[in-house]
């Protein structure tokens, strides 16, 4: 009994060592990068790395005065909101059909939607580039909106579909015998019931849209369409190379809202990330 207890105590110590060292591995680079954001440029790339820098708000002033940071921010926010709205408008009816109806080709259509998630951006990059060029949409947030929505549509549809499948059939049947139409059932019963799923899908789509890099790189060429993700590569000072304190600061500016919404939907996160395959 005593030895068993000691054994469990030992395994507890090992457990905390393993988890603790991983936590340090996760957090230490982040703290160091945060310190980059609040130090003067002269203390970033030095012959000997500086671990205790002087505190400075240089980067903060720089991003607003030397670069159109307000435009980057606006582009990111508008493109993300627009793309999430497009996704929800398209995905909710699609998910409703895939989850609540039996019809021929259901599995195949569902799998087709899922399979677009596997399309490497690089495969479609060139045709999409020419498509937007011909439409005159290069370097606009409209193009970003459309492409972010397209990239995330499969995820959003599958997440919402997964939540809709959990709703008991009786709920729907009761409303149907009362004579409610299918669209009214969707609007008044299904959507309120899967609201957590819809929010989860929207949050995950928004995060992926913030992160998107390749399409944005091809579409954006001026401050008209640069988002934060791609604008990072623009924080250069000509011959001085990259201006890392500005990069770090913007990285954290984007991180904070993402962190807050993820904490809020933490319970649904694993289900959302696996597109509904795991019910956490």
């Amino acid at each position, binding site marked *: 009994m005593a030895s068993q207890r000691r054994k469990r105590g030992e395994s507890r110590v090992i457990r905390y060592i393993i988890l603790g060292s991983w936590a340090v591995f996760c957090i230490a680079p982040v703290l160091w990068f945060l310190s980059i954001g609040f130090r003067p440029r002269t203390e*970033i790339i030095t012959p000997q790395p500086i671990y205790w820098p002087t505190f400075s708000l240089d980067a903060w002033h720089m991003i607003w005065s030397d670069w159109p940071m307000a435009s980057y921010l606006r582009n990111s926010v508008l493109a993300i909101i627009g793309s999430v709205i497009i996704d929800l408008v398209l995905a909710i009816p*699609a998910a409703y059909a895939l989850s609540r109806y039996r019809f021929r080709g259901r599995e195949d259509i569902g799998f087709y939607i899922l399979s677009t998630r596997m399309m490497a951006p690089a495969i479609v990059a060139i045709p999409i580039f020419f498509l937007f060029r011909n439409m005159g949409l290069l370097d606009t947030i409209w193009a970003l909106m459309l492409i972010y929505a397209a990239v995330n549509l499969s995820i959003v549809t599958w997440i919402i579909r997964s939540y809709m499948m959990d709703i008991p059939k009786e709920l729907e049947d009761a409303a149907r015998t009362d004579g409610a139409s299918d669209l009214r059932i969707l609007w008044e019963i299904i959507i309120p019931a899967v609201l957590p799923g819809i929010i989860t899908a929207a949050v995950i789509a928004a995060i992926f849209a913030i992160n998107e890099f390749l399409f944005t790189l091809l579409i954006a060429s001026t401050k008209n369409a640069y988002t934060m993700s791609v604008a*990072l590569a623009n924080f250069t000072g000509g011959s001085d190379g990259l201006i890392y304190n500005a990069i*770090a600061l913007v*990285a954290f500016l984007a991180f904070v809202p993402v962190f807050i919404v993820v904490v809020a939907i933490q319970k649904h996160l694993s289900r959302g*990330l696996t597109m509904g395959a795991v019910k956490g």
Partner: protein
Amino acid sequence: MTELSPNLSGAAKAAPAIRRRSKRMRAAFPYLLLTPAVLYLLMITLYPGVYAIYQSFFLVRFNSWTYIGFQNYIDLWNDREFWAALWNTLVIGSVALTLQCLLALTLAYHAYRDPWIKGWRIIFLVPMLFMPSAVAFMFKLAFMDARVVADLLMRVGVIENNIGWASSTFLSRMILIVADVWQWTPFLFIIFVAALQSQDEEVEEAARLDGASWFKIFWNISLPLMRPVIAVALVLRGIDITTMFANVFIITKGGPGGATETISYFIYRTGFKTFNFGYASAASVVMLILTVIIAQLVVKRAFHSGRE
């Protein structure tokens, strides 16, 4: 009488007609609901696919297109850089994926029933909440520009002199792998924890009362139950790793000597750096075919077993 009868018969006919139409309507309804989403997705899959196939038969020089048949594909077959890109993608991807899967399993195994860890779990998620481009710059700075990693290793005494990360095939690949493992192990971790938590605690309890060790329980009971979840998670992660672009673009630019050029970067470079669009499209088509094959073989199965 004569005036009434058409009305009557009309009304009598109308009822079944409406019912018939609404029946057809009902059958079409789910398709109608799906149409907008499917059309939208065809726009970014079918249209670009057809466009890329068409363009791959041309030599594209700005606005002049010259038909050259299969020449782009023949060139591709003989292009050592293309094969190298496929190989690099495979090497970097498989090492990174294996590492993060093993790490995430170990961490999830230790974390999932620990109430104290539960409150702090968000710490483990922090890396994946940064923009990938930001993480790429962070690692570029840490390894290359500020040389912090080399400095720390020298202080600990692991190495004697500074390291030329960028000039070594092994080390530059390793930076990409470390960056990916750092950022995305949390993705697998959170999924594995959720899967472990949703398992029946009583089975574990029974096995424990029979004297089975924690590890035995994990290996013989929990892990087999997790197989479908692991399959789905690895498929999703595998897709993202094989399409890795931002890290290559920012950290290594494909160097040294193409040792870290992934297939995505190869397509980007031939298309948008050397403007050889026909050739890049041919590479896209090859990648598209590989994707479709893998999708049919692996992904369909993973998501079918993972669903319930």
